[in-house]
């Protein structure tokens, strides 16, 4: 008997890994709890409440023949691109409500669309599992010069350009995120970790743009390092699907919105949840959130057709924006913070300012 030492078999290895994971989770919770001395609204208690916000409906953009699923402001702060269940993209002049371009795609349910940083291209996709890039030129040329950049194994739920027109970051129902090179269509990095459909992604506003956040039907939000492909931080607390995630303008916190009818604020430096935006009377899910430029206002689009305005610091609801006649699917503050766009299953997009 040359080798009598029993080699641990796979199930022993597994058991020890699971034990270690369990201990690490307990340690993590303990460390986070240790530093949880006070919550955000207590810190902000002495601050004057926001008495009145003068935000009015200004424009209604009509033209889609089905649910509006996603919108994105152009870097020029004037144009909006929208994508719809009807299989079309429309580029709008939000000042005049004119439709400047139509793009018809060979698919329905275009769940995501995004302007490139230069404003010269749009990326989009959805139930076709693909991310496709169109140059914004004349209508004929746009269709002719389209380029399929990447393909997932399930629907593409969200896309953004992280740094330049050269790269696109996507999230998918296949529970992964992916970074693509636009020119070659090459997969530069894939991001595995979620155990449910990825519903939303957002890029950190500060530094060099190597950090992003994702929200998923596994009820988690992950902070990723784009270069290594690793999860840096993970946040839990939601009781249902996380439909939307957004970085606070400071870059130090993220807001999430969920089917559990709450929005939450997670601080990255404290590594934990610091505020919950919910009321007993609110029983509908949230599809989309965004911050005003200072981060003091949190806008949230709900399934009950309303947009709620929250005071981020005091966790209090300031007011509701009424107007849409179906679920609010997307909300986005314009790049200079002067206006809010909202898209809905009622086929319209509205601009508030």
């Amino acid at each position, binding site marked *: 008997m040359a080798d009598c030492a029993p080699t641990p078999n796979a199930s022993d290895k597994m058991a020890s*890994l699971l034990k270690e994971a369990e201990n690490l989770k307990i340690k993590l919770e303990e*460390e986070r709890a240790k530093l949880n001395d*006070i919550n955000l609204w207590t810190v902000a208690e002495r601050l004057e409440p926001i008495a009145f916000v003068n935000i009015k409906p200004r424009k209604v953009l009509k033209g889609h023949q089905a649910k509006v699923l996603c919108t994105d402001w152009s870097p020029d702060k004037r144009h909006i691109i929208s994508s719809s269940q009807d299989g079309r993209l429309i580029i709008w002049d939000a000042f005049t409500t004119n439709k400047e371009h139509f793009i018809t795609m060979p698919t329905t349910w275009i769940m995501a669309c995004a302007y490139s940083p230069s404003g010269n291209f749009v990326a989009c996709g959805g139930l076709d599992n693909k991310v496709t890039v169109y140059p914004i030129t004349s209508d004929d040329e746009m269709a002719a010069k389209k380029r399929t950049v990447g393909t997932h194994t399930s629907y593409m739920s969200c896309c953004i350009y992280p740094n330049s027109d050269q790269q696109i970051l996507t999230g998918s129902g296949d529970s992964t995120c992916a970074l693509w090179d636009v020119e070659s269509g090459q997969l530069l990095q894939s991001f595995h970790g979620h155990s449910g459909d990825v519903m939303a992604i957002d890029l950190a506003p500060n530094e060099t743009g190597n950090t992003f956040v994702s929200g998923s039907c596994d009820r988690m939000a992950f902070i990723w390092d784009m270069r290594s492909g690793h999860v840096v931080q993970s946040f839990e607390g939601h009781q249902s699907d996380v439909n939307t995630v957004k970085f606070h303008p400071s870059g130090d916190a993220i807001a999430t919105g969920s089917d559990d009818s709450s929005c939450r604020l997670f601080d990255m430096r404290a590594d934990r949840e610091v505020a919950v935006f919910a009321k007993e009377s609110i029983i509908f899910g949230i599809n989309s959130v965004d911050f005003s*430029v200072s981060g003091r206002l949190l806008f949230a689009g709900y399934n009950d057709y309303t947009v709620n305005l929250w005071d981020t610091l005091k966790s209090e609801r300031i007011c509701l924006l009424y107007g849409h006649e179906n679920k609010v699917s997307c909300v986005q503050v314009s790049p200079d913070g002067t206006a809010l766009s909202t898209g809905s299953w009622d086929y319209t997009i509205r601009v508030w*300012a």
Partner: protein
Amino acid sequence: MAANLQQQRIINEQLRREANVPRIQVSQACQLMMKYMLEHESEDCLLNGFSSQKVNPFREKNSCSIL
């Protein structure tokens, strides 16, 4: 089993990384967040409104004009 094992190794690696994340007190993080928001309040048109509606590019144009 081998695949599960590999997957669990990845999960553990992630948890080890997360356990080593530097953290600050929640009160300190909240103070910093409040400071940021108050410092940027003056730039926030949706919070403060426009100084005059004339500078609001989305305002309705007056449809009547005197001839």
